[in-house]
């Protein structure tokens, strides 16, 4: 006689070490197999969009830091692009390079964190995470030299960047690039071809390309499924039109590919950083922007960038006042979560946490 089982509903989270923040999954299991999944979030909802209606355009930069708090530079960039579009301001070339450079360093930091936690979720208790954090720490030190802050940077402002890089930033950056080469090679050597990592992640939670596009998935998760869509190539902003880089793609869309694409993107980001260092020229770092920004009434803008998690966009509507009439954040983490149900149903409990890790969500951005 077969063993009689009955489905059991379990709440995973909101306080759970592997959910990357206050995220809850209501899962129905049959034994270890997942039958139903319902993602529940909103625990970190701070009403950023409503708060923005009460702040002036410059103050909102600090709010954007707190969306995806592991890639604040890129959030700043998307918001500043939207405001510049509203006002019709041309950013000086040096500022464009500084923005591209810091955004790529931030992408490296964010991907390192994504990779570290992904491996942590696989059960590697600490070691790869510490290897990732070793390099990320140095990037944060560089940010500290630029603007005095490590996480909530607010380095970019509408019209450019707030400070030019100090003189000792450039040797420190060179030193970082040199060290990072060996450090990252170590990480790659340890995990990229690691048999346990491969066995645990290959062929698990496959996301087909048509499904990914239909569910508006973007960023490394989309590219792991086979698309080469990258807004840095498709609608270049800041200095990306002057950069040479490839868009890494994978084909199968499983957990390993999502992780692999992030690893490859780090190489490309470092390539862009090196080109910025070569090409950057002296000049002003901020366009003439009034202290209190008042765009024309009725102006609207959709500022979008390829953030570390996917397409991040700020939709701004102005009524001619000192704060936006409406600010909407198109958050890649939230929209990438649309496919959780498809990815998880039918797989085992132990894969669930790994799959969530491979999506690399950030609750600050999901809940806003």
């Amino acid at each position, binding site marked *: 006689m077969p063993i009689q089982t009955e489905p059991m509903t379990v709440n995973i989270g909101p306080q759970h070490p592997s959910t990357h923040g206050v995220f809850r999954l209501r899962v129905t299991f049959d034994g270890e197999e997942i039958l139903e999944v319902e993602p529940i979030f909103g625990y970190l909802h701070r009403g950023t969009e409503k708060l923005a209606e009460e702040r002036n355009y410059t103050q909102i930069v600090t709010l954007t830091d707190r969306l995806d708090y592991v890639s604040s530079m890129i959030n700043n960039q998307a918001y500043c692009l939207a405001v510049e579009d509203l006002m019709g301001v041309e950013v000086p070339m040096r500022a464009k390079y500084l923005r591209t450079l810091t955004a790529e360093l931030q992408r490296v930091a964010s991907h390192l964190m994504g990779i570290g936690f992904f491996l942590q979720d696989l059960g590697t208790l600490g070691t790869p995470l510490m290897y990732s954090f070793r390099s990320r720490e140095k990037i944060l030190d560089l940010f500290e030299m630029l603007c005095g802050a490590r996480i909530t940077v607010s380095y970019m402002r509408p019209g450019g960047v707030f400070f030019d890089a100090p003189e000792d930033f450039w040797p420190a950056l060179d030193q970082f690039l040199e060290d990072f080469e060996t450090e990252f090679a170590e990480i790659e050597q340890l995990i990229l071809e690691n048999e346990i990592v491969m066995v645990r992640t290959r062929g698990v939670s496959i996301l087909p390309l048509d499904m990914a*596009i239909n569910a508006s998935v973007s960023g490394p998760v989309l590219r792991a499924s086979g698309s080469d869509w990258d807004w840095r190539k498709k609608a270049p902003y800041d200095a990306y039109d002057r950069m040479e880089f490839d868009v890494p793609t994978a084909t199968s869309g499983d957990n390993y590919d999502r992780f692999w694409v992030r690893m490859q993107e780090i190489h490309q980001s470092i390539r862009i950083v090196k080109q910025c260092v070569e090409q950057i020229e002296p000049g002003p770092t901020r366009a003439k922007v009034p202290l209190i920004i008042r765009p024309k009434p009725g102006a609207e803008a959709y500022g979008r960038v390829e953030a570390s998690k996917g397409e991040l966009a700020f939709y701004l509507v102005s009524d001619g006042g000192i704060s936006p009439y409406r600010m909407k954040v198109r958050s890649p983490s939230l929209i990438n979560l649309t496919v959780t149900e498809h990815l998880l149903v039918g797989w085992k409990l132990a894969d669930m946490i790994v799959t969530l890790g491979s999506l690399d969500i950030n609750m600050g951005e999901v809940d806003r």
Partner: protein
Amino acid sequence: MVVLQLSGEDLAEKVGAGVPDSLATVFEKPTELIPELATNHVLWVKSSRVADVASFLKSDAGLDFNFLNSISAVDYINHFEVIYHLTSMNKQHTAIIKTRLDGREELSLPSVYHLWRGADFQEREIWDLMGISFTGHPNMKRIMLWEGFDGHPLRKDYL
């Protein structure tokens, strides 16, 4: 290859032929807030025909909008505006579709969930924070706030 933004006139020509009686005339400015500056990039659609137009935009071979970037809603006190940002990954172009809902009570729009799964959380978010419900969405409930929360916080009259 760089992505091209389609103009409102081009879109109006194609959509007007494909889905009869679906286009809204670009609205006269009832307040100063109607975005005059952006109208040349925008296709205005009647609110009742949103799903039909979306279906045409997705299936027409020349337009082929297979990717829904975002859905946003704006409260203009006397009316609401809902904005769809679309991209075609094959044809490499983008479009902005707008629609307008008059009044403040019991607002609803046809859902585009069945065309683009990506609308799922975004439509729920608009219901939660703006109070516009989407008919045809299989799971129309609050997403950021809890069930039983009073009001829709992103509306201009909520605080």
